């Protein structure tokens, strides 16, 4: 994920320049670099420990809107996984659901407001469907990422109601939301992580 944020740093910042303040890429990159360092130092036991460490890094290093939102998401996901070692498809779906709940609560956002939620909510639905249909963990993530990509693309047509882009009102229409896009990129990076 850190590599993905490194790779897409300028792209995300570019998206943020159009309707925000041109720092989303830098913010995410800084956060995931910090997470990487924390993980390299810590050698965590369980997936939940990894998520918790990432959450702490994001909360304490990112700032802006993305820091507390993604930080909360990773923390909540860690919460539902408890001490589990190997994660099942259902575990993954539940973790994504908890993450979404955390973000919605913290950000007081709903679908259709041109935020992270617009990528994560469809991702959660797709993950749940894949898990319920007996898909593998890899399939769960892959369908979540695919749905997030579509969700992020769908933000182009939306008018922002939350976050910095909301100040633009109708002028926010026609641009893809940086946060929704970074959500897709993170899920996509997770898929690649499993594959590679």
């Amino acid at each position, binding site marked *: 994920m850190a590599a993905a944020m490194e790779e897409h740093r300028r792209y995300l910042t570019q998206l943020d320049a159009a309707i925000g303040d041109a*720092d989303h890429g830098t*913010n995410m990159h800084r956060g995931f670099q910090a997470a990487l360092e924390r993980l390299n130092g810590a050698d965590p036991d369980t997936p939940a420990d990894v998520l918790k460490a990432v959450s702490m890094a994001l909360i304490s290093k990112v700032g802006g809107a993305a820091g507390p939102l993604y930080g909360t998401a990773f923390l909540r996901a860690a919460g539902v996984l408890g001490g589990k070692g190997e994660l099942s498809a259902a575990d993954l779906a539940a973790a994504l659901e908890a993450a979404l709940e955390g973000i919605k609560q913290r950000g007081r956002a709903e679908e259709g407001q041109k935020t992270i939620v617009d990528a994560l909510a469809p991702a959660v639905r797709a993950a749940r469907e894949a898990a319920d249909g007996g898909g593998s963990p890899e399939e769960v993530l892959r369908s979540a990422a695919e749905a997030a990509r579509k969700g992020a693309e769908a933000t182009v047509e939306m008018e922002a109601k939350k976050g910095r882009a909301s*100040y633009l009102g109708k002028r926010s229409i026609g641009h893809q939301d940086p946060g929704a896009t970074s959500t897709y990129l993170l899920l996509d990076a997770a898929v690649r992580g499993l594959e590679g």
Partner: protein
Amino acid sequence: MKKIINAPEDVVPEQLRGMELARPDLLRYMPEANVLVRADAPVEGKVALVSGGGSGHEPAHGGFVGPGMLDAACAGAVFTSPTPDQMLEATKAVDGGAGVFYVVKNYTGDVLNFEMAGELAQAEGIETDYVVVDDDVAVEDSTYTSGRRGIAGTIFVHKIAGAAAEDGKDLAGVKEIAQRVNANVRSMGMALTSCIPPERGEPIFEIADDEMEIGMGIHGEPGTERKKIEPANSVVDELAAKVLGDDVDFTQGEVAVMVNGLGGTPVMELYIAYAHLADVLKREGVNVYRSFVGEYMTSLEMAGFSITLLRLDDEMKGYLDAPCRVAAGRPF
């Protein structure tokens, strides 16, 4: 990139260190947290005021730390809200036992991070509360959206709530007057140029040589309208009409006026704008109590300015006039 800096990633700590070195009588720098606190913090028994936000708005907020205003300022990366960790460090450093009050500008990032900091502080037994400042009338107000931005009007909250805390008000009292200031303050700005965040190295937006942006945010957020540059008086007319046309009736009582430069605009132009603003206010029956012309809340080297009106009551007047000692702008 035309900047007097070393490495872009060092601008925040270097400038904070510079402020401490320049004003050791006023400021102490906590390098681990990128926080400036009053040199004499904590002040026993006083409600402590903490503000902060992304860097790039200097002299806000570190320049307003000192007796009679803020107890601490947390500096994020340029245009990026600081993190809850920093805010918690600041909170612990300034808590004098009477609670800590956060002055937060209404940006999702600032609000969320200060909220988390408040939760963390409360878990450590420090009472906290906050006000969210949203004075920018360029943005449409609505409870369904993020609402309005906080811009230069925030400085009046620092001053008046700061004086109230110095005067011995308790946390609830400080919150009440901070909210009262926010309810009576309205601002709007415009820009002629973009600024260049150091890490980005290029302007946030392109704007033609004969164009201006009305209703610009202080982070380079696009404004409400892009159009051909007009004479100063027309620009002032437009901003003033929006501010006066909002829901505060500025013809009642007296008002404080601020003409705030965004960083790249010479003092000369701010006074040219003020000259016409004073005429407009007079014509509209607005009585000016005091006025403030200068750089209070900037946006790096952006050329442009904002105007702010605050309707005062007697208590606010007293606190506005109360002495304070801060680094911002003082010549001697």
